[in-house]
């Protein structure tokens, strides 16, 4: 049976297509202003990559913030359940999932059979999310992949004291004006994000094994800092940004 999972996030929309649980194809497009349009586009790309027709899909589950706007989805499930499910499928020893997405971050606890037993999400602001890094990359006039590489050169990270993204941006600009090295500022930004995630993880309690999902898991500097802070090995799936969609496709297979 062919199933699809669509994860409509604030930055990107992801689709994963499975046949009997086996990965057939995937796609990732920018979400933009039109959730439905980007879901259609991602689905079209994913079906092409999988070599199937859209009508071959027996069951489809939507997740992510835009899940309510996907009329062709058979069911809508939250990203908490989908990331939990996806991470567990990749690493069955997973008991804690740390997901850092574009607009929110979450820590999820799962039990031995893979059920979500508890979760925590970031509060209302963008601090501790991918959006925070994006805004800062723009202020520093560098790309996101460059950020992680530069951060790893720092020996003396600055402290970013503002949690508000807008004020933190002004803080960055003032550090630049003071002539502080870019790598120390960038490393400071990474530490600030990790502070947030670490405090959420500790609040919920971290149980081994820990898997990281979401687009920010591609940032090596964040992963390394978090690993050090939590004193835990962090498991990284091959395409962490697709785990929500993967989990959705797996849930679709169960519910068809």
């Amino acid at each position, binding site marked *: 049976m062919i199933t699809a999972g669509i994860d409509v996030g604030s930055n990107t929309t992801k689709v994963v297509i499975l046949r009997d649980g086996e990965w057939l194809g995937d796609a990732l497009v920018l979400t933009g202003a039109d959730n439905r349009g980007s879901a259609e586009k991602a689905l079209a790309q994913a079906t092409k990559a999988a070599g199937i027709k859209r009508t071959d899909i027996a069951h489809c589950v939507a997740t992510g*913030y835009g899940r*309510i706007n996907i009329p062709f989805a058979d069911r809508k*499930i*939250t*990203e*908490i*359940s989908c990331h939990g499910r996806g991470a567990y499928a990749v690493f069955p020893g997973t008991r804690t999932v740390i997901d850092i997405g574009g607009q*929110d971050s979450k820590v999820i606890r799962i039990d031995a059979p893979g*059920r*979500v*037993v*508890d*979760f925590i*999400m970031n*509060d*209302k602001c963008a601090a501790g999310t991918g959006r925070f890094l994006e805004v800062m990359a723009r202020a520093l006039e560098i790309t996101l992949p460059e950020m992680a590489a530069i951060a790893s050169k720092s020996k003396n990270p600055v402290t970013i004291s503002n949690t508000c993204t807008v004020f933190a941006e002004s803080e960055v600009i003032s550090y630049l004006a003071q002539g502080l090295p870019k790598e120390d500022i960038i490393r400071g930004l990474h530490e600030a994000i990790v502070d947030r995630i670490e405090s959420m993880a500790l609040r919920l309690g971290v149980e081994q094994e820990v898997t990281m999902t979401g687009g920010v898991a591609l940032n090596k500097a964040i992963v390394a800092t978090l690993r050090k802070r939590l004193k835990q090995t962090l498991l990284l799936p091959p395409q962490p940004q697709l785990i929500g969609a993967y989990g959705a496709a797996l849930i679709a297979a169960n519910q068809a």
Partner: protein
Amino acid sequence: MNIKELIARNLQNKGIKYFTRPSFYFLLKILTAFWRPQKGRWPQKISLSFYLDLLHRAYRKKQPVVWTNVYTPPELIWALGGIPFMPEIFAAVAASLGLAPFFLKKAGEAWYSTDLCSFHRGALGMMHSRLVPPPDLVLATSQLCDGAVKFLEAASAFYQCPFYLLHIPYPVTSPAKAQTWLAEELTALARDLKPLLLVMPQTINKVANHSNQAREHLLAVNQLRQQIPSPYRGSEALSDVTMHLLALGTTYGTAFYRHLEDNLSERVKNKRPVLPQQKYRLLWLHFRPYYPNFLFDFLEKHHGAAVAFEEVNAVTWEKLSVDDFWFSLAAKILANPLWGPAERRVVQAVSLARLYQVHGVIHFAQGGCRQSNGSVFLLRETLRRHKIPFLNLEGDCIDERNFMAGQTMTRLESFLELLEG
């Protein structure tokens, strides 16, 4: 133009005079008297009549208006011959009419920080708009929150009327001593206020009897709510709670709970639950958002999740005594589990969760509410030990700018998915 738009436009135009005239409320009272509600809607008629009557009397000024904070037992002020006015409740009423943003803005203009609980900011905005009956005196009780005391002190300065503060002891080491001490304070307060108010034993008798009758009906209502599926909507119960916060000790309070009991008995007897496809039962801690929002529809209609009970509707006190009124009133005040060590609230939450056979507990974390949010850690840990799932849902009861629709929905849905397993 609907009624809300009409009121909002009048507020903007400062054409507010008629909202502060007793004749306005008198007219509405008469119109309400002709209203023949459908079966099951009598409690709504009674609560509407109660509020119109209260505003009519408060503006008519035949009796002194006493501003006080929520959880001051209303019987205290009714028995003293005053009209209790709890501005926080009217902030919730304003929010339900979609008018809170106007008042919150007013409070901001008067230098009140958004860190202050929005119940108080809303009330302060109403005060600065002069859209509430002015007090003849202000009586603050030191429970539950310090913000309330400061807010009421500001009100007394604004209206230049006397300010009284009733200290409520923390019932920790010696509850019996605390009760005796508080009873003495209440007796002294009644003596001090005698020249201002009209304390008469006859009033005390009436108030105690009405309060006790309403209490019996409320106990019966709460027992009927143990039925599965639920005979009463949690969203309604969280609005109707204002009747036991303000109307106990009056004929309205008694009639309201008597009709509510009748309605619920009829629903249970004829198997007419409010949510036939009830999938989950929830216990709600703290109040709810009072501005129009999707939260309860989302829970009930989309997910079959019923709020089976709320901590704020629990009857935690014993009957009031006609012979020893102040002593029994002291006991009522001290019996509130939201006052005192957090452990009392936590113990109550666990026992209500068991009694109402809920699948999970939601704490609505009101922004700026130190007293409620301060007990979240203990609540969560204790409920977890009892294997009762718990969600701390951040939001705001009055200020809809602090209500994040998408994030709230995701948290709620995730919690329900977790309950599904």
